[in-house]
């Protein structure tokens, strides 16, 4: 208990109160996301009620219910899963509290349950990666063997990135995914799976990893197998965290599709607008880009995370 005694209603001191329920702290990406939101709230003069759901949907629903009880002004959350939010969002709507989704969407049929969605498009990230690869291997003769390191089985980013990538490379019949396995978004997982890929498949041309961490783990496996990452095997990842960008700049990765965690400032703007009753677009995508090795070298010095 701290200053909350006086402020768990709608800002007694006139401050806007934002209740934010985060998925958890399961990756460096997520932590950067949290930090960005916390910092932005401070800068924007918004009182943030933060809750970490530890990757459990139950905890998130509980948090939203408690925000309703505490009568916060705006609720924002990054849903752990896409579905299952209607009931609690209805309660929020009945209580007259606007809701903003961040990072991941929900599949609710009733779009009036939330004001807007702010975040990245995982399918697009996969597609961008795939499109780059198609372009890169245009000149290649013969089959291009791709191995894929999936994220946690059943998670939205894994499903969507796989989908987007698959759609994009369908454009070129040379490109073949010869193996695809889950590395659980971790370095250790990526490494262990890559080791087996390398043993089982003598000719691997491309590695597509659903995030940087698995790619970084795979790097170690590739090096240990006596191959040169970035040359013998083309490596594509998603996220663009610092270590990943470094690897890209060093020529070990070939391409990264960014998935920016820095939603904080945009979220605070939106919260203010929504609270003031202004109209906001139903879907706002974070500004994201892609990096090649040269771009990474330029961008690296000013990366925040």
């Amino acid at each position, binding site marked *: 208990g701290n200053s909350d005694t006086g402020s768990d209603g709608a800002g007694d001191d006139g401050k806007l109160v934002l209740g934010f329920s985060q998925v958890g*702290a*399961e*990756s*460096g990406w*997520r*932590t*950067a996301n*949290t*930090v960005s939101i916390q910092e932005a709230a401070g800068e924007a003069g918004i009182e943030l009620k933060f809750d970490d759901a530890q990757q459990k949907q139950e905890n998130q629903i509980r948090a939203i219910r408690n925000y309703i009880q505490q009568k916060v002004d705006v609720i924002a959350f990054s849903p752990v899963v896409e579905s299952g939010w209607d009931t609690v969002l209805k309660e929020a709507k009945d209580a007259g509290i606007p809701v903003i989704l961040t990072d991941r969407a929900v599949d609710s049929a009733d779009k009036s349950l939330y004001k807007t969605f702010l975040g990245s498009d995982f399918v697009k990230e996969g597609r961008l990666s795939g499109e780059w690869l198609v372009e890169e291997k245009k000149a290649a003769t013969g089959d291009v063997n791709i191995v894929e390191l*999936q994220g946690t*089985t059943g998670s939205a980013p894994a499903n969507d990135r796989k989908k987007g990538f698959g759609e994009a490379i369908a454009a070129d019949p040379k490109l073949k995914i010869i*193996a*695809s*396995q*889950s590395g*659980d*978004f*971790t*370095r*250790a*997982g990526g*490494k*262990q*799976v890559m*080791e*087996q*890929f390398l*043993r*089982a498949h003598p000719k691997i041309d491309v590695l597509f990893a659903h995030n940087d*961490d698995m790619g*970084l*783990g795979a790097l*170690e496996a590739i090096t*240990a197998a*006596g191959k040169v990452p970035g040359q013998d095997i083309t490596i594509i990842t998603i996220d663009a965290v610092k*270590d990943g960008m470094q690897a890209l700049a060093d020529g070990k990765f070939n391409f990264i599709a960014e998935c920016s965690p820095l939603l904080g400032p945009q979220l605070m703007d939106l919260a203010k607008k929504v609270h003031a009753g202004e109209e906001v677009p139903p879907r706002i995508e974070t500004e994201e880009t892609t990096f090649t090795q040269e771009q990474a070298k330029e961008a690296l010095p000013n990366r925040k995370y």
Partner: protein
Amino acid sequence: MSERIKPLLGHRLFWPIAVLVVMLAANTIYRPGFLSIEMNNGHLYGTPIDILRLSAPLILVALGMTLVISTGGIDLSVGSICAISGAIACLHISEAADQNSFVTVSTALAMALGVALVLGAWNGVLVSVIGIQPIIATLILMVAGRGLAQLITEGQIITINSGPYRAIGLGHFLTLPLAIFIALGAALLVAAFTRRTALGMIIESVGGNREASRLAGIRSGRIVFLVYVASAACAAIAGFMMTANVSSADGNAAGLWVELDAILAVVIGGTALAGGRFYLSGTILGALIIQTLTTTVYAMNISPQTALLFKAVVVIAVCLIQAPAFRAKFNRRKRGTPPPPASSPQRQKEEVTA
């Protein structure tokens, strides 16, 4: 069955080994090169070596877990302790000017090990002095410890670039990965400590009947305390390996769910969760079986969607084959002898009646 094979079949380790062999054979049929080992820059290189290297951390954690389980306890906090020790070591190294300095690395290891011992002592005190049920006592650290690990890394992945530290996970010695030797060394050390001294018997005695042991003059509480400390120490070393393997400390992912794997390894190895007799060699085999299972999933390219189903089938098959009752029923069908007692006395712990 000839008289020669019979004692072999009756041996405690026969069935776990058989399962391991079957799994390796299946892999070899799927991909003939599975078992091949080649020389590469003076290092042996191949899937069997991978399995040994990757199972090293699990073997370590499971060794400690064996002792804990033998006293009738359980340690859920090992995964968190792995993460904490790895995080402390990596943090210290990453902040040092010269990451390759041997002194830096040793200090880092010593610090991390020290913290792990404190955490083990904490578990030990909760269980043996305050008398909290082991599963809950260690659950506290399982939850909070993960938070501590992330507090240390501030939720980021700490990447280091330290040759000596890397060696713990990836270095080689006599053409084999160093990790194998570390696990082997730890196993021999634990074996020596428990079987060369009377410690093993005393632990088993405490696990078998704590009150009777107390009346025989054993300081049961102290023994229970000790095994939790030992378990934490093993987990810490495993944590070093896990982080060294990828040269980075991930407070969230390092050692996640390793406690379940470790318990599974111990139980496959023949140690009963109720406590009592423990079998270190069985535990090591159990860990190898689990790692081989994981590797099999990757090597046979079993789709992630069905990987867990596959695991379920293998685990249940392993246990069925090993269960004496299953084999007895199976044999009876062949020979037509009367049924054994409905429940074997082996599992049922003698209970305190007064």
